């Protein structure tokens, strides 16, 4: 028997990342200053990011695909993980959970996402998804002395396990139907046998939709999001609101547009009401929130709804617009969380929207940055949020979904109210409580990067848009 080692070059980033995560875990035992662990993690991620330039291709049969599409998502994950670590360093010390495992778990979770983005096979996809999810469950409950954090972890875990069940159901039905878990194999089989209207195929699409819908927090599978976002450590909320969501979209794009490409009509029919419901639930319930983390949880649900439009369009332009949106969302959302996290200080929770009253008076700089992020989340030019929405809307109108875009813009006008309310509290009310900001160099860097990104992409989006377009070429 002749064992041949598969070509490992396409999977180098994942391998190095795993090595990094293990290294961080070990080094944590000897390094006393946990800030050093954070710096090592970030430097490591930056180095791994360079290997993304390496060769592309398929390996392990076709189980693992490294292409432009996966690379783009991996960049989102890297941006996400580095920014999240930057805002974590001071925060986890304030929360008195300054443990090194935090960083290795974040890295493991990121590896899971990377594998998801590159999965060419449903089993690999499941592997990545579980690695990501399990690490995030632990991170959500990282403040172990806080009952809310515990609740968040448990809730996330139970519902996450439930959704994994759906995923496995879906996968097994597909396997039973087509005899393969390979995405391209599934697509070929469906076309060959003309299974477009097969009931079990529809059932499996539905099951997979539920599972992925859970990951991206699309309504009606969003129930976990507000509680988990509120309870989890704020830095992890930021991390979760971008990473797993982007990973979820990565697999949605891959699975639906590759494996179920032939059954497009079916899943688009399911996705349209799902997207509308997601935008409605996210934007309308957010109006009533008084906890900023909860509010941003609903806002992140709403943003999943906009990004879903890109999937509904179901062509390369749609995917590119969705990816572009997620990249922009990563910057603006983590930017907003970077401000939120600064309000948390020793003995002050700072997560009620009333804590923002008069912030412009006491901390004009923080208020001005928050203003930029809030307007970007609303989608007002000249911020990046506008570019993201514009691209998605253009793709959708081009595909003939003008009415859907009208629905989306109306919901985005509704969303202006709750984002503006934060601005209003900061600028138009007088301070009631004295808020002291826990600033640090690292969170300053995070804010500088995110603000610059939001403004620069807002005015000069060419490079990012071109990059997204290149990434989906030959998808």
């Amino acid at each position: 028997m002749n064992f041949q080692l598969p070509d490992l070059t396409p999977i180098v980033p994942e391998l190095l990342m795993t090595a990094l995560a293990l290294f961080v875990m070990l080094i944590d035992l000897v390094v006393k200053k946990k800030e050093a662990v954070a710096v090592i993690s970030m430097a490591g991620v930056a180095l791994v990011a360079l290997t993304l330039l390496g060769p592309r291709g398929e390996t392990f049969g076709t189980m693992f695909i490294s292409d432009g599409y996966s690379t783009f998502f991996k960049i989102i994950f890297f941006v996400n993980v580095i920014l999240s670590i930057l805002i974590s360093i001071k925060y986890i010390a304030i929360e008195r959970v300054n443990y090194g495992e935090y960083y290795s778990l974040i890295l493991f979770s990121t590896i899971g996402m990377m594998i998801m983005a590159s999965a060419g096979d449903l089993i690999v996809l499941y592997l990545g998804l579980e690695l990501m999810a399990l690490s995030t469950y632990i991170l959500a409950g990282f403040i172990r002395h806080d009952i809310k954090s515990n609740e968040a972890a448990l809730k996330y875990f139970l519902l996450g396990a439930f959704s994994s069940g759906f995923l496995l159901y879906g996968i097994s039905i597909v396997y039973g139907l087509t005899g393969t878990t390979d995405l391209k194999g599934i697509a070929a089989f469906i076309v060959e046998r003309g299974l477009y209207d097969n009931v079990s195929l529809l059932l499996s699409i539905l099951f997979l939709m539920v599972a992925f819908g859970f990951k991206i927090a699309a309504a009606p599978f969003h129930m976990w999001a507000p509680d988990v976002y509120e309870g989890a450590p704020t830095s992890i909320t930021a991390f979760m609101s971008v990473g797993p969501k982007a990973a979820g979209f990565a697999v949605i794009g891959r699975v639906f547009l590759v494996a179920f490409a032939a059954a497009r009509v079916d899943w688009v029919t399911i996705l349209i009401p799902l997207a509308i419901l997601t935008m409605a639930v996210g934007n309308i319930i957010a109006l009533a929130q008084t906890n900023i983390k909860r509010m941003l949880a609903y806002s992140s649900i709403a943003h999943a709804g906009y990004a879903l439009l890109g999937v509904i369009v179901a062509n390369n332009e749609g995917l590119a617009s969705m990816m572009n949106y997620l990249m922009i969302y990563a910057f603006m959302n983590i930017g907003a969380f970077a401000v939120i996290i600064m309000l948390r200080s020793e003995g002050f929770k700072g997560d009620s929207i009333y804590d923002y009253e008069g912030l412009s008076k006491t901390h004009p700089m923080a208020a001005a940055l928050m203003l930029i992020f809030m307007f970007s989340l609303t989608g007002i030019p000249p911020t990046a949020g506008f570019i993201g929405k514009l691209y998605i809307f253009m793709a959708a109108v081009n595909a003939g979904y003008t009415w859907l875009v009208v629905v989306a813009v109306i919901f985005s006008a509704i969303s202006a109210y709750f984002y503006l309310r934060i601005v209003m509290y900061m600028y138009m009310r007088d301070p009631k409580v004295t808020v002291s900001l826990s600033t640090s160099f690292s969170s300053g860097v995070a804010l500088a990067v995110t603000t610059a990104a939001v403004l620069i992409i807002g005015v000069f989006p060419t490079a990012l848009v071109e990059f997204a377009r290149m990434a989906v070429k030959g998808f």
Partner: protein
Amino acid sequence: MNHLSYPILSLLIFLPILGSLLILIMRRSWELLTKFIALVTSIATFLLSLPLFTEFDKTTHKMQFVERHSWIPNWNIHYFLGVDGISILLVLLSTLTAILCVLISWESITKKVKEFYISILLTTSFMIGVFCSLDFFLFYLFWEAMLIPMFLIIGVWGGPNRVYAAIKFFLYTLVGSVLMLVGIIVLYLYGGKTFNILDLMTRTYPYTMQLWLFWAFFAAFAVKVPMWPVHTWLPDAHTEAPTAGSVILAAILIKMGAYGFLRFSLPLFPEAAKAMTPVMLTLSVIAIIYGAVICLAQTDLKRLIAYSSVSHMGFVTLGIFALNTQGIEGGILQMINHGIVTGALFLSVGIVYDRTHSRLIVDYGGLATVMPIYASFFMVFTLASIGLPATNGFIGEFLILLGGFMKSKLVGVLACTGIIIGAGYMLWLYQRIFFMEVNPKVYGLPDMNVRETITLIPLIILVLWIGVYPNTFLSFMHPSVAHLLERVSSAGMQEAVAAKAVLEVIR
């Protein structure tokens, strides 16, 4: 196409931004320096805009002072600026307004001074941008971006109910704008993936599409104008905004809606615009009469002027949708007039408000004895607002009514009632504030100081200049308006020729 050796329009847009950045790095305690930077910037912007006035070629409808650079090539977006006879006066009005806003706020703004002047300068820059943009993307960028500083101006420095007013303002305009955004995207895709407004204007669109797009754009413009029944944000916003905010709103911001109708709705969707003329005229007439009648019941000075804006802007939309030369030229001129007069009235109210901190009419009375100079200034603006001959209001309203009568006698007659009621509420207002017994609350108020007088003088000059010799300003518009009407319909052109003859006779 730009025969000046420097990019004048870009300079006009970026100079205020530069000024605001300069203020941004100022220390919070250097308030006086901050104010001076704002003043110098706005004056420099105004002076810089004067070549537009002198160098403008009045013989062509073509865009002038054009600048065009590729900006976002993958969406075929250009940084494309230019002005024609429709927009040039509005640009000049914007640069002038900026100075007045800085001057009038000199003493009345005492908190967050730095942020205030940054907001004013940014608003100025975005306003100029809106009127100069010839690329839809660029236009939308300025159109929306201007909401941010305006929202802050109303909400931070406004009156007691400012937050409500600011949010209402923002949400109303945003809902309208996003519908227009969808319309813009549809145009972009249908018109061969271009945001170039001039290119898009040369195409014809299917009638049903025109109708949908007309209403999508209507949503944005009608809210800004504001037309009845989406005008309700205006009284709140005008009333609660600080003086400078009210002036910007009255003089420029609400002109953006009417400008939108002229620049986009008519040439892009001419058939839909013609088909919708009865609806638009009806809405205009309702706005004229409704706004005027409501004015009679107001007890708050600023609210009264705000409702009079609804009425006056009704005249503007009436003129535009009369779809003949007089109507449209009158409409454009009336936009300028309304900007000058209502701006001046808000400035004047601001002057007494700074002294008494009351906007209620009952708190005044006999001001003519206490502040005689102020009273005479106010008198001129009141008469201009009514439309007395030899003031600018007369010319604008006369042309509009002429156009209105030519379109439909009924519309003309109904619109005239608006003028009559207008004379009623303005004169009654003047009587209650300046004549009658001296209200004890206004005893010993100082008359206008030099700064305040300087603020109002340019406006007085303009009121009389346009009133006596409107041709200086009308001559800018002729080719552009003729071209516009040509585009709207060939039938409209014959009408325009006939109308021109009538106009010659009048002169």
